[in-house]
């Protein structure tokens, strides 16, 4: 049994090698589609994992307000009310808005001055030391040509000049890639606004849910989201992203399968002579089908592993050029920002299965029909 299987495997390898050019031509589309699929899923997964890590490390409860269905600013006095709630340890203000640099809209994020120095990874320069200094995200810095010492005039409610004191490391979180980080006070001055966009609330262990519900009862329109709710939303977004990617690539996989079947047809006469020779040598129909299946499995291994390695080099070594921009909003085709990615085994195993199914669909039926026809017809 094993001797026979080994002999068939060796014969299958010889067959694949003998038809290498035909296999390469028919599998190229499948290989590229699988590579895009595996790379895309890795980016979606990496992005979700980064967001989850941030959610885990961030505040226990995020507070915002919604008025007439839109996000509304919060009165700073609310921070004191929230801080007085049982179980609350610390409350921070966040100011998020958009200002213009020339005609370019820029996301402005105001955080407490202390966080500016301690909560980010710097690529170059230093943390802001005095009011009027800012940190630029890696993508923003590249887009606007910002570096430490650059001055930037921003038009919020007022026109203010900021000095870039540092640029975030490209490996820092995606959320800050295109943002300009300033202190809360500077952001409030820029927007001529004493209110805040969000409150970040840290609670004692086990108090997050109760605090969130208590905050929502303080004023009508307040929305409090716990870390667990954030994590659920991130998982939902990941499912949607990976589902969208798989849905978009499904027609391509189907076309690649059809292309493989069509290519098989062109080598039909040579294949029929090979199968006739096998039959004359004493191969049964089952042997021929097993031989074909082993050939397909071997091609699937080459395709699956090749796709994984292409995807890995594309994402990890090259930074996912031309791919990240489709999956992550606001990134350029050749991003300066490090693209988060995580390669997991299941997409790779499914890649093997898809490759096997695609190649088997294109060849098993043909091999079965040829195994039923007489050897004389093949040489006619």
């Amino acid at each position, binding site marked *: 049994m094993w001797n026979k299987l080994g002999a068939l495997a060796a014969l299958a390898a010889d067959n694949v090698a003998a038809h290498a050019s035909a296999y390469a031509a028919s599998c190229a589309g499948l290989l590229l589609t699988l590579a895009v699929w595996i790379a895309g899923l890795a980016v979606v997964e990496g992005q979700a994992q980064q967001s989850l890590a941030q959610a885990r*490390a961030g*505040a226990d409860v*995020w507070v915002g307000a919604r008025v007439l269905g839109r996000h509304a600013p919060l009165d700073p006095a609310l921070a004191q009310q929230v801080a007085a709630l049982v179980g609350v340890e610390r409350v921070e203000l966040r100011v998020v808005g958009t200002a213009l640099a020339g005609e370019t809209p820029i996301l402005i994020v105001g955080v407490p001055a202390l966080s500016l120095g*301690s909560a980010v990874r710097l690529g170059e320069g230093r943390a802001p030391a005095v009011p009027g200094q800012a940190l630029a995200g890696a993508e923003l810095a590249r887009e606007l040509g910002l570096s430490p010492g650059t001055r930037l005039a921003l038009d919020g409610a007022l026109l203010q000049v900021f000095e870039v004191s540092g640029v975030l490391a490209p490996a820092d979180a995606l*959320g800050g890639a295109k943002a300009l980080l300033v202190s809360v006070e500077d952001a409030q001055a820029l927007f001529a606004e004493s209110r805040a966009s969000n409150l970040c609330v840290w609670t004692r262990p086990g108090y997050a849910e109760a605090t969130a519900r208590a905050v929502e009862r303080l004023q009508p329109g307040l929305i409090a989201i716990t870390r667990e709710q954030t994590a659920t939303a991130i998982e939902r977004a990941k499912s949607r992203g990976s589902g969208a990617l798989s849905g978009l690539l499904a027609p391509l996989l189907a076309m690649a399968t059809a292309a493989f079947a069509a290519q098989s047809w062109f080598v039909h006469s040579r294949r029929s002579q090979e199968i006739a020779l096998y039959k004359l040598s004493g191969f049964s129909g089952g042997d021929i089908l097993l031989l074909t299946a082993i050939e397909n499995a071997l091609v699937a291994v080459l395709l699956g592993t090749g796709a994984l390695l292409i995807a*890995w080099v594309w994402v990890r070594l090259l930074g996912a050029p031309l791919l990240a921009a489709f999956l992550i909003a606001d990134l350029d085709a050749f991003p300066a920002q490090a693209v988060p990615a995580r390669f997991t085994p299941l997409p790779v195993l499914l890649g093997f299965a898809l490759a096997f199914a695609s190649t088997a669909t294109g060849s098993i039926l043909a091999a079965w029909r040829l195994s039923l026809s007489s050897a004389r017809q093949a040489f006619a």
Partner: protein
Amino acid sequence: MWSASSGSRLLLLAAGLLAASAAVLRYEARRSAPPGAWTALSGGLGLGSRAGTAAGWFLFDARLESLRDSALSPLPGVPASDGDGLRGGLELAPFASRPPR
């Protein structure tokens, strides 16, 4: 005995690719914090409870989200920073990722 033929070279190539893939997956597993077994296996595939219906509603949902963002955006082409209240939180999360506790 099976001699070294083009077929054997192909098998060697397949074995090499398999070894390289295994090395890549091992490297990736070490890079990230050890997750639960199912999380590791299902990573990226969207095998959550909504996956079954994802193909049906994701396009509609994405379109709706895009429309809502553009309606809320203060400037053309700029997504609203608030969205459903969560988006702002996610944007801000990195800056609170290493808070002085």
